[in-house]
């Protein structure tokens, strides 16, 4: 009877098209909204990702990479002295105001990198990153550089009344706040950042060969009293902060709920119409000896089939949208982890199955004697 069920479904082209197109839209919107949510949240951790440090050490009260809770300069030496730490370097990370040549001001994310290694400097696109050793030298990130009027190597702007001269452009993707990224040596960054009693924000470290990362972070915490995270942990700490403290989850969640409800109502109504229109045929099948269980399985098969086709096509459409509108350089934050595809698929199948229940209830309660009614 499976083939009969499929032919019943696909033979009614208008209903089939309505069902599938509704589910394509639901699947696409689920993926699109979900991917934008994931994209936004992932971008909050971008300032961590671009550094590429195995271990981040910070003030224990710090809740995200965007908070500034300075450490003592001596904390760097304390981390370096922890057994199992291969190396440790300082990182200054602050938001500072840049004064542009056209008179405008622009907030930038300033990274002060270790004077000797420049650890954390992204891959260069143009210019020479080694020139950071020069006085007043800065490297700027590619993303959002238009906010600094797309400076070329050699051009200058000011931060904290100190001149900054661009020596290169680095490959940096957009972050959540869309601030331009500016890199300088640690000592130079101290001059660009507003003066405070303590300036060091983070200590970046790496484990010695053969020592597990988790063991090293545990030792740093125990020895120094500071917080120590693996890169993954620190990314999640930051993303968790924005998940808890912004309206993004609830806003996107409401959108997804609306998509689910609208999809449910359209698909449910279409399925119900399908059951109504086929009532006498279902009645005939019942009269001829088809059990309610078999009819239920036939309807579930129809629901699963439109669900698979709809979610597949919707996922494809979402993928195309992502390729066109997404990407690390796009202003649209768009990221589609495999879990998002699974969630979208489950949502569409749930809509189909819930809608099918309406039909199943109708068909199971249907008296076969209906076939003899004119």
């Amino acid at each position, binding site marked *: 009877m499976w083939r009969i069920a499929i032919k019943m479904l696909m033979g009614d082209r208008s209903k089939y098209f309505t069902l599938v197109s509704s589910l394509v839209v639901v699947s696409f919107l689920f993926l699109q909204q979900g991917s934008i949510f994931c994209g936004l949240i992932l971008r909050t951790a971008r300032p961590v990702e671009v550094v590429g440090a195995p271990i981040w050490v910070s003030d224990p009260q710090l809740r995200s990479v965007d908070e500034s809770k300075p450490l003592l300069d001596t904390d760097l030496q304390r981390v370096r002295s922890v057994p199992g730490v291969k190396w440790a370097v300082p990182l200054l990370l602050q938001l500072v105001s840049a004064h542009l040549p056209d008179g405008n001001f622009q907030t930038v994310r300033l990274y002060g990198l270790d004077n000797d290694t420049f650890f954390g400097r992204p891959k260069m696109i143009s210019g020479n990153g080694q020139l950071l050793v020069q006085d007043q030298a800065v490297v700027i990130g590619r993303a959002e550089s238009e906010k600094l009027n797309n400076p070329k190597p050699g051009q200058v702007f000011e931060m904290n009344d100190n001149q900054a001269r661009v020596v290169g452009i680095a490959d940096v993707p957009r972050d959540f706040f869309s601030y331009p990224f500016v890199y300088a040596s640690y000592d130079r960054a101290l001059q660009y950042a507003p003066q405070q009693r303590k300036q060091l924000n983070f200590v970046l470290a790496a484990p010695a060969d053969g020592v597990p990362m988790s063991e090293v972070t545990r030792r740093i915490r125990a020895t120094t009293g500071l917080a120590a995270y693996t890169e993954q942990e620190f990314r999640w700490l930051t993303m968790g902060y924005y998940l808890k403290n912004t309206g993004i989850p609830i806003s996107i969640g409401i959108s997804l709920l609306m998509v689910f409800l609208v999809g449910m109502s359209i698909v449910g109504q279409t399925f119900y119409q399908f059951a109504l229109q086929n009532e006498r045929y279902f009645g005939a099948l019942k009269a*001829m000896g088809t059990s309610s269980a078999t009819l239920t399985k036939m309807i579930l098969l129809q629901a699963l089939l439109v669900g698979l086709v709809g979610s597949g096509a919707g996922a494809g459409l979402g993928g195309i949208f992502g390729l066109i509108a997404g990407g690390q350089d796009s202003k649209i934050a768009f990221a589609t982890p495999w879990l998002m595809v699974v969630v979208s698929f489950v949502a569409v199948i749930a809509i189909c199955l819930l809608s099918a229940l309406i039909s199943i209830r109708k068909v199971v309660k249907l008296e076969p004697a209906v076939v003899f009614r004119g």
Partner: protein
Amino acid sequence: MANGCDTENGTHAACLRGVTKLFGVGTTEVHALNHVDFNVHTGELLLLVGPSGCGKTTLLSVLAGILDATSGEVDVFGTRIDQLDQQEKTQFRRDNIGFIFQQYNLLPTLTAAENVAIPLLIHRVEFEEAVAKARTYLEKVGMADRADFLPSQLSGGQQQRVAIARALITEPRLIVCDEPTAALDGETGKMILEMFRSTALTGDRAIVVVTHDSRIFPYGDRIAEMLDGRILSIHENEFASGHTSDGVKEIVQ
């Protein structure tokens, strides 16, 4: 079952005793069937006639096991179907009853052959095998060249012939038909009834036809008249022999 009914040894196909069917409750209560006693012989084509609302279709539904009687006994080929649960009744219909409907009820998205194959598919026969067998039954009703047509591409008479093939394909022992010629012109209606007699009616099988169509009365072996949920009389092919009862004459006129 008593009262001369013998469904177990093949004399009778079905026997109904004291069958009552009530619809509604309280002031809206309607006796669709009122203590009906009724036998169907094997090897006969029985016509059920009567005015609209007299209970013909209700009786047919109870006889076919697609509607539960409120009270009374329904014996079909030795099985008390009034004592079966819904699952057993479904299985009984699948194995013993063939249906022909006024509106044919052919699934519009299936070809004629696929429609005819449905009862076999319900019996879990493989699709290809079922459709192949359906083609042989379509040949029997003169529809071999229309096997791959959709119902919408067939005339009313052709659709009813497909429906007959569908009702016959599992060789059921009892075939019930509700107004099988109502939507057909006179000639096609007669042709359908002739086909019933030639292809469906064998010695151990019975056909019960509910009809208003006087043109097909000559094709019945017996005619049962109904009025207000009761069987008024059952006549031996009297319309064909010219001994039609007043009730039947009234219907004919």
